[in-house]
Every structure is written in structure tokens, then in C-alpha cells.
């Protein structure tokens, strides 16, 4: 057994160093008992020697040669390893023995208990408290914001706030304490009471009320019977519906649906005849359904089911059919709803009948619905009208409904063509007209307007045909199926269109010429009065037109002062001529003298005035500021002056606004600022205004009673705050403004009040 143990220990030693202690313990105790420790030690040494042969640095194991302090009772020492004892190591050991559960628990408890953190410092705590309190209070206060705002914007505030409701006693109360005194009153009351007239609420007497409430027996019976019948009918109908719903035959449902659809269309037709507006609404419904269908992917074979069917479709005829059905349904639903056209086509009626059937408005609106494009819209309406006009005079069954019968995809390009066509047509007609106007004499064969119109129309038709073909050929090109004749046909079309296009600039030219003509006329007309006034005829050739406005400008500026004062004014014809004594003596002589004097004086006066004005203007002009720096860019020093070029560049006077009397030669208006008035004017803009003109607008209306009626004056000068004398003004309460009171709001009301007062005092 010993040997076994030793062998074991040896193995353990060779494998693990940590676990050495334990096996060492056992043999030692045994050795003591046995007494042959000598051999054992030798063996140990041998083992050590063997193990040291590895070359590995083996740890020196504690050896108990004598009593020492280091040795614990468990024979564990920490000396050799030089490491600290870790709790985990202990636990490792403890785990095995269940007897140490309490210790383990304690240890766990110790481990789980957290360290209590240090308390925050006082400032921090207070700050946090403040933050929280602020948040709460501002939340409470924010509910007062609208009231504060309202009070700020209010034209007038009346205090005390709590309005005492005038105690409105109901009239019954007032009457109960009151009795008729005078005979008249008594009589009246007697009469009233006799008839049981309601004294207070003059509506209905009790009798009348009762009579109203009552109803005859027959009537009631009839009413009841009617109700019964209606109820029975309803139940029958419900039962029928339930029954029909349960039928599983698909064919049946299909038939029913078709029948319904037919019925609906028939009804629609009827409606169109009877009530077009309702019909329009119905149509709109259809249109909506169509739109929804177009939007959704419901029947487009893109769903899960459809995909699975698509896989199967190659082999399964039914699946293919199902898919086809789906597509057909989609097509059917997305097809534009055509009013009665299908049926009519089947019957083979002419489209004129159709035109009659469908009111004009219906078609138009329907088209409006399909395209929100305004161009399309205009096109459609005018198109239909055009068609009508075409048909009327020429009795030609033009296929006017092509846009109806054609499918969706083709509509767009057609519409574009129509626009183009119309454009062409308009231009053409314009050109025609201008041509007509211009060369009246070459046009010896005066075409009547009607014929020209027809001509235009025929041309238009030809053009449209061409364009259509063009379009078709383009399409074919796209599908790469272009045949030779097609291509050949295509070629002439643009060539023929080209002259039309080429003709355009010509027309523009002519128009321009016309405009110019008009302008010239304007000019001439404008010029005429002026020369007459000034007595100088100036012929204007069209060559110098560009500089014409300039000249005019100059003229406008120069109102001739001389003319202004010396123009001959018509003399007044007066009935009573003043009698003067000297008049008889030497009238002629005096007249001449006067005339000469006046003439000379006039010249003098004008010259003096102009001189004076010039001087004043010069004086009021801002002085030039010399900004030249001598020595910059050139030599400077004594006796050297900055060059004239430089002086011209840097000698600047700030440009003022143009003078008010700039264009008034006979007037001199002082530009000096009246500082006395300025002292009374507003110099600082009040708060919400950013521009002086805004503020000026608010102070335009005078407030005084001189300019306003009494009422208006009172309204304009109402005091901002009105208080009732002798009343205590209490702070605003939540109840006053319709809030529910709370302890917090009471807290807030003082602050709010102060805030409000603050604002009102502003």
C-alpha cells in the first residue's frame, strides 16, 4: 500500500507542482508511524534529483525540518510561492466539503456587500435640488403662459379680476314675491290665470302642450302597421341575401356581377339624360376605381399566387388561363370608362348619335379627370369644339372620337401633336391675317374670310394626317419593323413641314415691323405737341431712334425758365374795367414804358434768381474731403505737390440725395434740416419695429378729439388698465381663468401676478 501511495505521489509530482503538498502530507505522517523515515528521505532526494534532471526550474518546496512560525496548522505555507493567497483558492477547497457552508455563506455575504459611497458635498446636493425644483415649477408656470400673453395683448385690463356675476334671479323668483297691486294689473293677471297662460315662459299653454302630445288612435295604428310591414320586408330580404351568399357556383356569381355591371351602366345612361351632374359623380366613382386599380399591383400577376402560377403555367393549361384571366381583369379595370360607347359601337350607330347621347360637359370633365396637365385639358376641350366646328359647316364625318376609342398609351403623343397642330394653326392664321393686312393691293382676288378659314382648316387637316403618319412611322421605327414604303412616306413629311417652320421668322419680322410702326407713331405723336410749344420743328428720322429717348430726357429736365415767365397768357375779359384817372391822359406812352421796363426787369429777375439759387446750392453742397496722402506712390517733400490725377482720385465729396428742386428751375427749396422739428420727432424705434416706415404707419392716425368723432376718440384713448375704486385687487387665481385650482397653482399665482403687473407697467 505504501508503495502504491509513493508511486502515486511520484506521478503527481511529475504532473503537478501545486498539488504536491497533499500527498507529501500523508506519507510523512505515515513515515513517522513506521519509523523508517531514513529510507524515505533518501527516496525523496532521489526523486528530486530525477525531477531536477528535467532542467526546469523547479520550485523549492517547503520542508518541515524544524518547528517554525511559517507553518500553519494546515501545513500550508505561502513562503515558497511568494504569492498572495487568493480567496478563490480557499473557496476551491471549501466547495468540496459541505461542512463549510456557513463559512461560504459568510464569505459570499462579504463579497456581495457593496461599499457605501461617499456622500456628495452640500453644494452639489443643493444644485440638484434646485434643478429639480426649477423643472417642476417651470412646468407648473408654463400653463399660465397663454394667459400672460393674452393679458399682454389685451387692449384693456379691468381689475379686480373676479367678476361678480350679477345675480340674475330667474323671473319666477322675481314674480313670486310680487303681486298685482293696481286694478289694471289685477285684471291682466286674472285674464292670464284664467286661460292658464304661462306667465313666465311665454311658449305654450299646458293644454297646447297636451294636445300636441296626443295623437289619434287610427293614426297610431297605421303607423304601427307600417312599421311591422317594414320590419317583415327587411327580414325577408336579409334571408334572401343570406341564401344567395351561400351559393358556391362561380358561374352564378359571374353572371350576377355582369348583370349588375350592365344595370349600373344602363342606369348611368339614364342618369345622363335625366341628371347629368349625378352622372358625373358616378363617373368619377368609376374613375376612382380605375385609379386605385392602376395604383395597386393587385391583378398584375406579381403576387405570390401569381408567381407560383407562372411557374406552373408552362405545363398547366388552367394556370395559364388563370393568369390570363387576371391580366384581363386588370385590363378591364384599368380601361377607361367609356360612356355607352361600347354598346353603341356594337349596335353600329354613328358617332353623331353618340355625341347627342353624351352631353358635352361630360366628355370634357372626364378628360379633365384623366390628365391634370393643363395643356392636355385645354387641348381636349378645344379639340371637341374644333371637331364640332369642323362638322358643322362641311358635313364631313371626321373621326373626331379617335381619342376616345384609342387606347391609353396612344393618347399622350396624340395630344402632343394636337398641341403642336393648334400652335401651327394659330400662327398660320395670324400670318394670314397680317399678310392680308399688309398686301392688300397684290391680293386682287380678295379671299373672303370664310374661304380663308376653310383653307386653313383643310391645311390643318392635311397637316394632322401627316403628323399622324409621322407618329406611326416613328413607332414602327422603334419596333424595328420599318418597311420601305413607310420610310418613303416618312420622308416628304418633314420636308413639307419645313416651309411652315421657315415661314415663322418671316411673320415675326412683320409683327416686329408693325410694333415699330406703332412705336414710331407714338414717338411722332409725342413729339408733335412739344415743338409746337417751343416753336421749333425737329424732324426725326428713324435712323437716330436710339438716341431719341436721351434727348427727350434732357428736354424734360430743362423746363425753360424764360418760357415759364414770358409765355403769353390770355388776358381776362372783364366786364367792369377799373376806371383810373391817368388812364385817359397818355395811355400809349405809359404802356410802352411799362412794356420796356417789364422786359428788362424780367431778364434781370431771372438771372438774379438763377444766380442766387446756384450760390445757395453750392453752399448747401457737402464740401470735398481731401483724402490724398502726399508721398504715397510718388515723391513727397517740401515744394512737391501730389499730382492732379491723384488729387482727382482722392478728392471726394459724399454724394447726397438729389435736390428736390433739381428739375424746378423757378424754385429753390431749402434742404436744411429743421432741427426744431426733429427734436419733436421720434428718434428711437420702439421694440417690435425694425424699419422706420413700419412705425410711421402706426402713428399716422391722429388720436385727438379734433380729428375724430367722440366715440372714436373714446375708443382710441381707452386706458390700458381700469381699476374699480375701493376694491382690493387680488392676485389672479386659477379659477378666474378656468383652470382647476391646486396647491401648486396657488404658489404660482403670486409670481404670475407680479409678472403680469410688470408687463402692464411697461
Amino acid at each position, binding site marked *: 500500500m505504501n508503495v502504491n501511495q509513493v508511486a502515486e505521489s511520484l506521478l503527481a509530482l511529475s504532473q503537478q507542482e501545486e498539488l504536491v503538498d497533499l500527498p507529501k502530507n500523508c506519507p510523512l505522517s505515515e513515515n513517522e508511524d513506521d519509523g523508517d523515515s531514513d529510507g524515505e528521505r533518501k527516496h525523496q532526494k532521489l526523486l528530486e534529483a530525477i525531477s531536477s534532471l528535467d532542467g526546469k526550474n523547479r520550485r523549492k518546496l517547503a520542508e518541515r525540518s524544524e518547528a517554525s512560525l511559517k507553518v500553519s496548522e494546515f501545513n500550508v505555507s505561502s513562503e515558497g510561492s511568494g504569492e498572495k493567497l487568493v480567496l478563490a483558492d480557499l473557496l476551491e477547497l471549501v466547495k468540496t466539503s459541505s461542512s463549510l457552508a456557513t463559512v461560504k455563506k459568510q464569505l459570499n455575504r462579504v463579497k456581495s456587500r457593496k461599499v457605501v459611497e461617499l456622500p456628495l458635498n452640500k453644494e452639489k446636493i443643493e444644485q440638484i435640488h434646485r434643478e429639480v425644483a426649477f423643472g417642476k415649477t417651470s412646468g407648473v408656470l408654463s400653463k399660465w403662459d397663454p394667459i400672460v400673453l393674452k393679458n399682454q395683448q389685451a387692449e384693456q385690463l379691468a381689475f379686480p379680476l373676479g367678476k361678480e356675476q350679477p345675480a340674475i334671479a330667474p323671473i319666477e323668483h322675481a314674480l313670486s*314675491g310680487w303681486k298685482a*297691486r293696481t*286694478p*289694471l294689473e289685477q285684471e291682466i293677471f286674472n285674464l292670464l290665470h284664467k*286661460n292658464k297662460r304661462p306667465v313666465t315662459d311665454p*311658449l*305654450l299653454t299646458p293644454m297646447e302642450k297636451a294636445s300636441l302630445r296626443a295623437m289619434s288612435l287610427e293614426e297610431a295604428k297605421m303607423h304601427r302597421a307600417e312599421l311591422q310591414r317594414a320590419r317583415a320586408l327587411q327580414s325577408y330580404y336579409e334571408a334572401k341575401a343570406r341564401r344567395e351568399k351561400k351559393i358556391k357556383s362561380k358561374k352564378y356569381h359571374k353572371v350576377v356581377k355582369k348583370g349588375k355591371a350592365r344595370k349600373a351602366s344602363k342606369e348611368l345612361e339614364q342618369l345622363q339624360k335625366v341628371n347629368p351632374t349625378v352622372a358625373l359623380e358616378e363617373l368619377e366613382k368609376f374613375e376612382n376605381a380605375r385609379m386605385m386599380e392602376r395604383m395597386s399591383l393587385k391583378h398584375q400577376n406579381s403576387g405570390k399566387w401569381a408567381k407560383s402560377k407562372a411557374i406552373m403555367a408552362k405545363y398547366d393549361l388552367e394556370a395559364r388561363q388563370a393568369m390570363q384571366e387576371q391580366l384581363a381583369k386588370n385590363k378591364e379595370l384599368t380601361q377607361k370608362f367609356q360612356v355607352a360607347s361600347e354598346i353603341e359601337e356594337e349596335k353600329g350607330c354613328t358617332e353623331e348619335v353618340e355625341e347627342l347621347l353624351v352631353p358635352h360637359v361630360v366628355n370634357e370633365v372626364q378628360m379633365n379627370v384623366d390628365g391634370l396637365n393643363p395643356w392636355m385639358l385645354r387641348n381636349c376641350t378645344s379639340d371637341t369644339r374644333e371637331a364640332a366646328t369642323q362638322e358643322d359647316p362641311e358635313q364631313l364625318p371626321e373621326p373626331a372620337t379617335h381619342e376616345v376609342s384609342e387606347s391609353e398609351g396612344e393618347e399622350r403623343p396624340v395630344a402632343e401633336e394636337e398641341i403642336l397642330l393648334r400652335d401651327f394653326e394659330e400662327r398660320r392664321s395670324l400670318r394670314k391675317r397680317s399678310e392680308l*393686312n*399688309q398686301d392688300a393691293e397684290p391680293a386682287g382676288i380678295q379671299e373672303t374670310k370664310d374661304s380663308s378659314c376653310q383653307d386653313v382648316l383643310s391645311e390643318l387637316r392635311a397637316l394632322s394626317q401627316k403628323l399622324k403618319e409621322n407618329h406611326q412611322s416613328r413607332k414602327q421605327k422603334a419596333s424595328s419593323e420599318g418597311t420601305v414604303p413607310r420610310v418613303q412616306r416618312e420622308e416628304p413629311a418633314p420636308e413639307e413641314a419645313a416651309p411652315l417652320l421657315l415661314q415663322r421668322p418671316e411673320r415675326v419680322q412683320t409683327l416686329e415691323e408693325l410694333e415699330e410702326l*406703332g412705336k414710331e*407713331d*407714338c414717338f411722332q*405723336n*409725342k413729339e408733335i405737341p412739344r415743338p409746337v410749344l417751343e416753336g421749333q420743328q425737329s424732324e426725326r428720322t428713324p435712323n437716330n431712334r436710339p438716341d431719341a429717348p436721351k434727348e427727350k430726357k434732357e428736354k424734360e429736365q430743362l423746363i425753360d425758365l424764360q418760357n*415759364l*415767365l*414770358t409765355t403769353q*397768357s*390770355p*388776358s*381776362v375779359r*372783364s*366786364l*367792369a374795367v377799373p*376806371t*383810373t384817372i391817368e388812364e385817359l391822359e397818355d395811355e400809349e406812352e405809359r404802356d410802352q414804358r411799362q412794356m420796356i*421796363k*417789364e422786359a428788362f426787369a424780367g431778364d434781370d*429777375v*431771372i438771372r*438774379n*434768381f438763377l444766380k442766387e439759387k446756384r450760390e445757395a446750392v453750392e453752399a448747401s453742397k457737402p464740401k470735398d474731403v481731401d483724402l490724398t496722402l502726399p508721398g504715397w506712390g510718388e515723391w513727397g517733400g517740401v515744394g512737391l505737390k501730389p499730382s492732379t490725377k491723384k488729387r482727382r482720385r482722392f478728392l471726394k465729396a459724399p454724394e447726397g440725395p438729389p435736390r428736390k428742386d433739381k428739375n*424746378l428751375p*423757378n*424754385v429753390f427749396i*431749402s434742404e436744411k434740416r*429743421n432741427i*426744431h*422739428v426733429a427734436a*419733436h*420727432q*421720434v*428718434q*428711437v424705434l420702439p421694440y*417690435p*419695429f425694425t*424699419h*422706420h*416706415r*413700419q*412705425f410711421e*404707419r*402706426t402713428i399716422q*392716425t*391722429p388720436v385727438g378729439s*379734433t380729428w*375724430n*368723432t367722440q366715440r*372714436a376718440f373714446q375708443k*382710441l384713448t381707452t386706458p390700458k388698465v381700469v381699476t374699480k375704486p375701493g376694491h382690493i385687487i387680488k392676485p389672479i387665481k386659477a379659477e378666474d381663468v378656468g383652470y382647476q385650482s391646486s396647491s401648486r397653482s396657488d404658489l404660482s399665482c403670486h409670481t404670475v401676478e407680479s409678472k403680469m403687473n410688470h408687463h402692464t407697467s411697461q
Partner: protein
Amino acid sequence: METAPKPGRDVPPKKDKLQTKRKKPRRYWEEETVPTRDGASPGPPCNKKNRELRPQRRKNAHILKKSRISKKPQVPKKPREWKNPESQRSLSGAQDPFPGPAPVPVEVVQKFCRIDKSRKLPRSKAKTRSRLEVAEAEEEETSIKAARSELLLAEEPGFLEGEDGEDTAKICQADIVEAVDITSAAKHFDLNLRQFGPYRLNYSRTGRHLAFGGRRGHVAALDWVTKKLMCEINVMEAVRDIRFLHSEALLAVAQNRWLHIYDNQGIELHCIRRCDRVTRLEFLPFHFLLATASETGFLTYLDVSVGKIVAALNARAGRLDVMSQNPYNAVIHLGHSNGTVSLWSPAMKEPLAKILCHRGGVRAVAVDSTGTYMATSGLDHQLKIFDLRGTYQPLSTRTLPHGAGHLAFSQRGLLVAGMGDVVNIWAGQGKASPPSLEQPYLTHRLSGPVHGLQFCPFEDVLGVGHSGGITSMLVPGAGEPNFDGLESNPYRSRKQRQEWEVKALLEKVPAELICLDPRALAKVDVISLEQGKKERIERLGYDPEAKAPFQPKPKQKGRSSTASLVKRKRKVMDEEHRDKVRQSLQQQQQQQQHKEVKAKSTGARPSALDRFVR
């Protein structure tokens, strides 16, 4: 007879008593019980009535609406009761045939509107906008109220119409006096005062009193309607001019040497020696200023409420003997011998404006009551009417045979000119239109050359002072028919006058506020505003109102690199720049269009045949 018996207890026994004591008398209501009951019965009959009435009301409303539209779609206030017609129904069941407030003609409202809405404002914040809206609403409301109160101006101006083709100028005073009622006829009179030479005269502001002073010292004041003489004195000195001060109790007389002030008893109150050799007097009633023009060339403003000389301005144009005031803005117009008219205010040392009117010297100046037109006559025998609204250009010119020595405007815009011993009156189309000088409205020959002219306020009377005395002639349509009883009441008592005096003194306008535009106070002093702004910027070191430059927001995922930030900034800058360019382009285009439109509108339309011109 009974002291408020407590209702309920006392009455029944009394009633019993009455019944027992006497036989019940037949009361008036006993016969009428049946009809009253029928009439008062509520319910169906009433409803029926209503139903019958309703279409009628609607019809009325419809008509009303139509009439409004015909005037203009702008309706100042929607009638209130269209919203809930039920509540407006009266107890009797009768309905207002003209519901809602009466419509106000838009033109009349426009007259009272003072905010020029055609001027565009710069973009404003919401708060500012609300203020502006409030101001505009206030203005509209007040102007509507004012327009409504126009109804109270019941009097209509007089007029004179000749029979078909008849010239009104041929109608002489005697004919007019014959045609009018006796009170009006009494307003035409002549005072033959040949002794004391040519007279100057002046009516008081209420038009009730007349003061006149003769060249040879005769001064008198009278209530000219009742012909009651207030005072008559001889100042023993040449009288150049005479004028009432703010009320009829005080008279200013420009005598040979100094200016004297008398009361209505003829007692001399003041002798103002600082105003010497005064030739003309003008009184500015709202400023309490007496403006005097003197031979020495000084224009002196005397504040009569405090007795101080406000300003003495040297006109530097020699002798001043032509003066008139602009009643609209209290600017004094002086006529000079060099043909100019200068405009003066006490706040400025130099004229506000100078207008060259005549080749010769200016003989007379007058300004109409709206301050729009100025009439001048000069030595060149011309009579001109100038537009005073900024352009100062003559609107019409006429040569008179001997030139007009005196001019005056009436309250309703009639112009009178005194030429020698003849007085010519011209009339315009209405109140605010210039008098057309084509044909005189009235002419009158006096017994001597005219020396003073004035229309009497609130009366169709023209007072003419001449060498033969005073003539008061009737000029139909001259005076304003409606007077403001609080402002200038011709029928006021002494007490009322005293109260008015106190109020007027309280509302005295400072003299320095006189300027060409009387609405200058409703404007902001832009220059000092700008300067204040500049100073503030200098003080602060930055512009607090400047728009903050765009600062791009930081973005994540590496898109906030410096380059991208710069790019974004650049983008915003470019956008702003583009906006500016766009705006300037638009403005240019608009200007061009404006010019084109103007050119087109001024030129005559091309004739239809012009299109054939090659």
C-alpha cells in the same frame, strides 16, 4: 299715495275693499280683452306672420347688397345679424327692413384715411405685423365713424346759376339781394366812411366780428351781423393793417411807428416797440403767433399767449408789404419786389422755399384753405395760380388789364382779386379745385380803389375795404356751410368763448413745429435714428441687429469636413447673391415696363390705318 306697500300682503284686501265699496267700473281694457288676446296669442299665428315676412326681408337684404356692390365691393363691416337672424327678431315679430349698419360710401371713408397703403413696407416680423394690422384696423374704424358722422353736416353751400346762357358775372349785387331772404339781404351793406381814407379790414375767426382801420387813424370793431358797434377810436396815426387776435376781444393794429394791441372796448393794452413800421399783419391761430412784416425787411413772430417775440427773421429783400399765411401749414408767404415769393417758418433763419413767380414785383399773394393753391399777382399784370404740392409750378395764368392789387381765397376756394375799383371773383368746380380763370364768377364795382379784401368765414359774404369805406357784398357759395361748434362757433356766448380760449391755449402748437409738411410729426427722424444706430455699433463694437452670418450645422459620418463646410457656406452665399441679382433685375424690368407704359399712354393711339403703312 302709498309708501311702497309690501307686495303680496296688502294688495288682496285692498282689492276686496274696492270691490265691496263701489260698483266695479267698466274699464277700458274690458272691451279690448278679446282683441288683445288674439293679438298677443303666441304660437302658430305668429309663426305664420314670420313666414310671410321672411321673403320680404330677404328681398330687402338683396337690394341692400346690390346697392353696396354698385358702390364698390369693399364692405367695411359685415352686418352682424346675418350670422344669426333669429336672435335679432324683435318681440313684436316685425323685422328690420334695413338690417345691419348702414352702408358707408367708400369715397367718404377714403377721405378720412391717412395711412398710405400704396407704399410697400419692408418685410416685418409676425409681432410687428400684428401691430400694423391693429393700427390699420383702428384707422379704418375711425374713418368709418367719421364718414358716418358726415351725415350731421346738414347744411349745403350756396350757389349762383345763371339762366341758360346767362353769364353770372352780369348779375349785380342788387339782383342777388332781391332774390335772397331778408336775413341774407341784410348782410349786404355799405359803410360810407370817406373821411378816413382807404380801409383795411379783418373778420374774426368765427366770422361774427369785423374790425377795420382807415389810413387816417380810424379804428373800429363791430358785430357786423347785428351791426352792433364794439368800439370806435381814432389812434391819431396812420393805420397800415388791422387784425383780430385769437378771439374778437383783442385787436392788433399796425400803426405808423409801432404795433399796438387794443381790446374790444378800444383800450390800448400793449404797444410793442420791437415791431416797428409794420406794414402787414397775419395771425396764426393754432400757434398763437402774430406775424408782422415791416418796412425794415424783418419778419417778426410774436407769441401773443406769452408776449414774447419768437423769431425775428431778416428777409433781405427790402421793404415787405405783401404777406399771407398758408392756413394748412401756417407757413408765411412773403412777396418781394424781385418777383419771388418766399416761404417762411419761425424755426428757420432762411426761407423754406423761394418761388420765382413774376417778372416784376409781386403785388399780392393768397393761399387757399387746403394749402394746395397759391394765387399771386405781379407788376407784370399777371395773375397766376401755383400748385403748392411740391412742384410749385403755375397751373393757370391770366393777364389782367391792370393787374390785381389784392387777392383773397374763400373757404370754399373762390378767388377774389381787387383791381382798382373793381372786384373780380373766380370760382372752381368744387372745394379742392383751383379756381378757373376763364370767366369771372362775379364782378362788382366799388366807389373807390380797393385797399383790403377778405371773405367772411362761414358766410357767403365778401368784405371789401376801399377808399370810400367798407362794402360787404354777397358771394353765394363762398363760405363753408357747416361750422365746428367746438372750434369756431359764430353763435357762442361769452362763457363759451372763455372756455374755448382755455382749451385753445392748452392745445397751442409750438412755433418751431411750423414746416412745409404739417404731418412731419408723424414721421421718424431718420437722420438721428441712423446716427444713434451708428453710435451704438461703435460703442458695442458690433452690430446687434445685423443678420448673423450663416453657420453650417455640424453633420456626422464625415460630412462635416472643412471643405464641405466651406462649400455649404459658399452655397448659401451664392444663393443670397442670386436673390439680390434677381431682385435688381426685376426692378429694372419693372422700371422699363413702367416707362413703356407711360410712353404708350402719353402717345396717341395709332390709328387703324397705320397698319397699311410700309
